[in-house]
């Protein structure tokens, strides 16, 4: 029994796993050798014969292989035979790439991709192109095109991401100001642009005669209760209009455009297929909906969805290059670069974008992708900067330039800010998750548009009376980040300053009544923003989280900063201030505290560290604040990790049950592969045999089961493994064969072997060796799950086969692993969806 499979074709069982890598690199010259053999498959394959013509081309891999052949051909019959089989194995990978069966290599909706298979396919394709390069000029051009297509693709993605971001920025800032009034001479200008060349104004901007507020449009008066009510009504009405448009456009045209998109992008980049999630309609509706929902004054930002928009652009452009469009694993390289471009344009932080892609969203991030992301982020930032959407020479509204030193003692309040930020962030995550779960399970989820309208009305009605919540969130962040100076006339800067001093020295001064009023308003704004953001994030409109959390942190930081400043003013001789503050100049900058606080809350919410700090210092253009930002981000992350396990994106991935195998978690249990694998004890394993099943049998199996793939074995008795075949490929191949050749009937044998059979039945056999994966990853049943989980993460597997004494025992899929992890963490394993 044991000896039997060593004869004949099944020898491949032993030789292939070890030699797989080797044959993959060297198959081509061997084709030449076997060309004259009576192997039916090769005679059929016109492509492979064509490939054999340039025999004299001396690639290094060819040389290697010839050597191997020479040495091994001294051995007996067995080795020669095994070589034949190996050749076929390699060729089976090529044929996956060949176009004879349409649709092979693609995936269905909500399926996990097989990184190994896709990367192997790409390697084959690449090798083929390199080989052809020496044949003709056309081959050379093709090779060159192939080499630069990745860079070209990310260039296009960067270009269009920059343009899209510019459109969104300009559109949103115009529409936001539409809530307050209009510029009658040039309706397309927002308030600041409208008053661009207006002379002799007091700076609070209230009386630029070219900008008409809504009460001015209808009556002549400007102040008083009546006009205030008109403004109030217009504010609410516009907000309602924008929000309802946004919600209904999303509902009508592209439901996938709602939300921030980052949890889904993370899942997609980890190797999941969501058809239509990165499509054209999603792109259009997300961009338009984003402009509308930001303009509605809701507590949401456009920065997170920008990542989704960039990924849509990446996906659309990858279809121009079949290398990426037809290969899901390769496509993810472009998407990673696009995500970097998204953050790059969102914050004007190209390096921060690359690091964000690396730290937060990407799963598979080789150096090549890093460089492409770098380039893509650079192009996108450059384009947005040339569009200059805010007229401030920067790509974000709240760019501030700081050059003040900080004193060592200030690290303590910075760490404190980090701690408070972590607490606020955890509070936010827990509350938001509770609310989202409630929305998912209760009747509330049936009224998505109504919900948006109610939240909008509430935000507008409560927000309008407070000037800090009335203005757009980006403007508020800008105000909080800024230093008090002559150009900042907000009540936040109402200090009793001596005006005779020179301007550059903005010394510590006693706070005037305006500052105290501002603090109260800011506290109210903090509470309102926190509560409303909890209800807003997760609504069915495009909504991001970066800006609201930055804003929460900035409010908190500014309040603490003002507190510290007044402390230093009132007690300038305490030892902590004694060195720096004795002169009264450049002592404490409240704006810096706002920035550190913003970083702390954002860090607590998303659990980013490196990328967050880089984004923040790219926002301020000051390298000297890296240490304070790092301290705050670290403290916030620790507090956040201590109070709640996950960041908001991971929590939302968990809530939706996306099949995301987090590489951050450690698997600490002692279970074995045998405990996890399917089928369980008293169920049958559905398999195919390599040469004894008819088409009818296979079709019945496909009908009765719902597995996404089937192991192929030698025979039911021996259970020796041959390979693995995917359900989708099987379906396609059978359908294709039935269409192409009439003779295939239900009685035809399905052969996964070479087909050197002698029996001549009336119906010709259906040969499916091409779609068979002869090198599936296998483990033994005693493998600890730690190792298995590691393999799934690092190799990006879709499934692995479990063997015992060399016989097939079962299958472990990614879904099984995810369920197992959930089960061991005492969570409901059925919450894992799809796959």
């Amino acid at each position: 029994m044991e000896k039997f499979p060593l004869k004949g074709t099944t020898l491949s069982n032993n030789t292939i796993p070890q030699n797989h890598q080797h044959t993959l690199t060297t198959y081509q010259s061997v084709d030449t050798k076997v060309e004259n053999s009576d192997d039916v498959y090769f005679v059929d394959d016109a492509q492979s014969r064509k490939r054999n013509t340039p025999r004299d081309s001396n690639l290094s891999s060819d040389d290697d292989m010839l050597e191997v052949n020479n040495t091994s051909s001294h051995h007996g019959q067995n080795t020669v035979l095994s070589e034949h089989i190996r050749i076929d194995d390699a060729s089976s990978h090529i044929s996956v790439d060949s176009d004879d069966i349409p649709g092979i290599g693609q995936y269905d909706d909500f399926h996990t991709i097989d990184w190994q298979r896709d990367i192997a396919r790409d390697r084959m394709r690449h090798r083929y192109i390199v080989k052809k390069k020496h044949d003709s000029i056309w081959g050379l051009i093709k090779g060159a095109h192939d080499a630069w297509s990745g860079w070209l693709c990310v260039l296009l993605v960067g270009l269009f991401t920059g343009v899209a971001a510019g459109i969104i920025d300009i559109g949103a800032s115009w529409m936001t100001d539409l809530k307050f009034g209009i510029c009658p001479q040039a309706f397309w200008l927002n308030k600041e642009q409208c008053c661009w060349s207006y002379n002799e104004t007091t700076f609070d901007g209230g009386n630029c005669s070219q900008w008409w507020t809504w009460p001015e449009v209808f009556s002549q008066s400007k102040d008083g209760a009546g006009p205030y009510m008109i403004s109030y009504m217009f504010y609410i009405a516009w907000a309602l209009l924008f929000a309802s448009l946004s919600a209904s456009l999303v509902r009508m045209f592209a439901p996938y455009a709602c939300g921030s998109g980052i949890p889904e992008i993370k899942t997609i980049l980890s190797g999941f297929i969501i058809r239509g999630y990165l499509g054209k309609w999603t792109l259009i509706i997300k961009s338009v909906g984003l402009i509308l929902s930001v303009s509605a004054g809701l507590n949401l930002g456009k920065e997170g969805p920008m990542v989704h928009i960039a990924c849509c652009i990446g996906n659309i452009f990858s279809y121009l290059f079949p290398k990426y469009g037809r290969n899901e694993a390769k496509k993810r390289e472009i998407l990673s670069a696009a995500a970097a471009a998204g953050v790059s344009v969102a914050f004007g932080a190209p390096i921060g974008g690359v690091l964000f892609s690396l730290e937060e969203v990407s799963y598979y991030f080789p150096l090549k992708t890093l460089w492409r992301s770098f380039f893509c982020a650079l192009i996108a930032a450059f384009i947005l900067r040339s569009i200059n959407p805010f007229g401030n020479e920067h790509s974000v509204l709240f760019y501030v330039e700081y050059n003040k030193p900080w004193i060592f003692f200030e690290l303590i309040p910075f760490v404190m800010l980090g701690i408070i930020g972590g607490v606020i962030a955890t509070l936010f995550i827990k509350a938001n998750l509770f609310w989202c779960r409630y929305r998912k399970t209760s009747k509330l989820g049936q009224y998505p548009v109504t919900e948006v309208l109610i939240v909008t009305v509430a935000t507008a009605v409560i927000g309008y009376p407070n000037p800090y919540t009335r203005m757009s969130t980006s403007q508020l962040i800008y105000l909080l980040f800024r230093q008090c100076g002559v150009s900042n006339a907000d009540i936040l800067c109402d200090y009793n300053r001596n005006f005779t001093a020179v301007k550059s020295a903005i010394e510590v001064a006693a706070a005037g009544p305006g500052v105290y009023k501002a603090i109260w308003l800011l506290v109210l704004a903090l509470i309102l923003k926190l509560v409303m953001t909890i209800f807003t994030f997760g609504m069915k409109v495009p909504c991001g989280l970066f800006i609201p959390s930055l804003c929460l942190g900035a409010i908190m930081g500014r309040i603490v900063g003002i507190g510290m400043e007044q402390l230093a003013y009132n007690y300038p001789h305490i030892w902590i201030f004694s060195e720096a503050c004795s002169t009264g100049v450049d002592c404490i900058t409240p704006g810096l505290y706002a920035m550190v606080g913003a970083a702390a809350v954002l860090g607590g919410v998303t659990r980013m560290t490196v990328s967050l700090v880089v984004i923040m210092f790219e926002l301020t253009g000051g390298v000297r604040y890296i240490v304070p930002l790092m301290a705050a981000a670290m403290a916030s992350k620790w507090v956040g990790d201590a109070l709640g396990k996950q960041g908001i994106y991971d929590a939302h991935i968990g809530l939706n049950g996306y099949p995301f195998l987090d590489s951050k978690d450690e698997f600490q249990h002692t279970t074995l592969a045998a405990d996890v694998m399917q089928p369980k004890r008293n169920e049958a394993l559905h398999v195919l045999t390599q040469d004894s099943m008819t088409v009818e049998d296979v079709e019945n199996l496909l009908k009765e089961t719902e597995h996404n793939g089937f192991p192929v074995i030698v025979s039911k008795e021996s259970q020796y493994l041959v390979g693995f075949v995917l359900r989708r490929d099987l379906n396609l191949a059978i359908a294709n064969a039935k269409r192409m050749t009439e003779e295939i009937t239900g009685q035809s044998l399905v052969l996964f072997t070479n087909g050197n059979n002698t029996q001549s039945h009336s119906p010709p056999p259906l040969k499916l060796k091409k779609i068979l994966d002869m090198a599936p990853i296998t483990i033994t049943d005693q493998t600890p799950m730690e190792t298995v989980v590691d393999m799934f993460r690092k190799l990006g597997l879709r499934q692995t086969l479990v063997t015992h004494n060399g016989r097939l025992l079962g299958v472990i899929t990614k879904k099984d692993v995810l369920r197992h992890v959930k089960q061991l963490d005492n969570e409901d394993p059925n919450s894992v969806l799809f796959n």
Partner: protein
Amino acid sequence: MYRNNKEKHIFNESFKNIMLKHIFAVIVIVLICLSGSEAQYDDKRCKCICPSLLSVINTTQSSSERKTYIINVPPSECKCENVVLSKVGDQLKGKEEIFCSRCDCKYENRNTTIIKIVVILVIWVISLLVIYMLFLICLDPLLNKRIHKASTNIGYHEHNNEDDDSSTAPGTFHAMGERGNVLNRVGHQQDKWKRQVREQRRNIYDRHTMLN
């Protein structure tokens, strides 16, 4: 019978699609023409923000009022001395330096043409989407209903479920002319898209399996 109705339906849809595309092209052309003749607002400025004059002349009084002085000069001349003093120099009576040291001058530029094009484009896109949405909500069900009524005898109910997908595949309409084929393909694409959106809606709004 069934095919004819189906045809008509598809023709309507695709006609509308083509119309939309035409409208879009016209808009783009108009926009490009408009953009040439735009110089109403300056695209460069030098902006100086200064405290009110009173704060210098009468130092006991502190006021939060600010004045801005805007002038169109080259960037190298964007200084308080050039911008502000030319206007109010005579009122300062020798305190020019104190006053100027507290002014904040910044040279800025912008591009009103881009802003104009973008805003008009955004308005157009939104209104097109709204019109199309209203069409899909109001008119489309009416059209569909008529087709449904006409074809109930043949058992044609939902032309968007899975079974029908194969029967409306583009390959089955080989007999028709080239033009019919194009229209068919457009109509077919649109049906496919509608089906996808319906599926997405089911996932998100009904089953709540995604994007919660």
